[in-house]
């Protein structure tokens, strides 16, 4: 549980860890029935459908101020998002 939660950068409460352990085990045990299926004739390219490509040409994007206005922390004058210090301490 802790390993998976760490991979997902997910904080779980003690209560959630306890409840989820049994629930996730039951869900995965149920999902295990896919292991019994003979999939020799399966063509995984059939679904989902192919993705269309487009030319790699720059096009106008969203207004920067408008986007930054939705950020929890931003420096709008400098035009960037702000995050806690990453390097050094």
């Amino acid at each position, binding site marked *: *549980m802790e390993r*998976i*939660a760490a*991979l*997902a*950068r*997910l*904080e*779980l*409460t003690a209560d*959630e860890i306890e*409840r*989820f352990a049994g*629930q*996730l085990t*039951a*869900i*995965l045990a*149920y*999902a*295990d*029935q*896919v*292991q019994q*299926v003979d*999939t020799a*004739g*399966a*063509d*995984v390219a*059939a*679904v*989902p*459908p192919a*993705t*269309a*490509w*487009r030319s790699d040409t720059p096009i106008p994007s*969203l*207004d920067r101020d*408008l*986007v930054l*206005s*939705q*950020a*929890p*922390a931003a420096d709008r004058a400098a035009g960037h*998002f702000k*995050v*806690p*210090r*990453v390097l050094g301490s």
Partner: protein
Amino acid sequence: MSLPTTACEIRAAIASGKVSAAEVCRDALARIRDTDGPLSAFLHVDEAGALARAEQLDRERPASAPLLGVPIALKDNICTAGIPTTAGSRVLEHYVPPYSAFVVEQLERAGAVIVGKTNCDEFAMGSSTEHSAFGPTRNPWDLERIPGGSSGGSAVAVAAAMVPLALGSETGGSIRQPAALCGVLGLKPTYGRVSRFGLIAFGSSLDQIGPFARTAADMAALLQAIAGQDARDSTSAADPVPDYAARLDGDLSGLRIGVPRALLTSGVEADVRARFDEGLLALESAGATLVDVTLPHAPLAIPVYYLVANAEASSNLARFDGVRYGTRADDSSLSSMYYKTRGRFGAEVKRRIMIGTFVLSAGYYDAYYVKAQKVRALIRKDYDEAFTTVDAVAVPTAPTAAFKLGERIDDPLQMYLSDVFTAAANLAGLPAISVPCGLTGDRLPAGLQLTGRPFDEALLLRAAHAVQQQIAMPGPMRPRDSGSL
């Protein structure tokens, strides 16, 4: 004077000058005020914006607009520029999108009036709307029961006649299942038929936006407005959009409907089964022929769905990290910010991120994710084979009528089984519709589901219309005064 209630009547009345768009809008807003208190279908009602839009339409009078002045509600995971969009999550509690979804642009072009945003399970993960961070929505047929989900708010807004039309979204049945449980029409279009641009992503290979309506003609008009290709969704399809209202004439002669009887032997409530059988009779008396078909891999839809959808969800929801939008929980370090911000997800979202992260993790990817994708291809192959002899496949939309609030909240697996008949269409990318087929002994709606060939939504609407002509559905009781709506 009583105002028209269907989208087609509203459009015609406004276009001919009998009523104004502003009158219709005020009527819808009054219905929401009078009705929504105990139901909680709406998270946000945009009174000022809707009225301003309606008045603008009255000034400009674009007479050819196909949804002229028609009030519509949108599930709150569909981005609306300038109108809050939370996806039912604390993580996006104060989010106001800087852009609108493709479907919103199309609705504006069609002359529709967006009146508000509807409640849903957090990030569309759930089958009861109980997983919304802002409280559950209740079923207008019985306030002690869930409306289905995840698009429960949109289903209720249409069922309780607050609006004639609403949009929801589906990943495994989130339009059709609440439509069945609330007694309205719900359609999941073919994957690629409606652009996902501006839909907050859950399972990208499964997600699709679709309509709720009370009549097939209204649903045809709404689908007509939102279908079509959009360069901003690379999976959006170039296939031509037909005239969806062309054959709503009640005549199904020549149509062959497949019934996979082996799927119906267990787990279907007797009353729901009986209503479904009456729905089949309605199809037959409209001229359709019933044919037995088999879908050998369909019973695997739920396990496959919960592997594929959650894998995609764990990847899609990685973007909610407290940096670019939404809320941020803790600024003391980068790592702490990630953990604590994402700690605000509700229990169901966390469960699904955990499952998805696990099945994508080293050592398990092939056994779970790749294997599930192979079984998914076999599910599609079953349908392709069935469609060589039939035009659509019929099953009940949900195995039971609406269940009570709280009944399945602590048993995720039981909750997941609400989607046992709906998830296959998402996995196979096929269009599917739920049409009301009567009430159970407890006066709860049941739904008949039809799944069709890719891009054959017109046939599903045609069949649904024929069923509706024969099986009259009363409205739900008004919660306040117990009078009929």
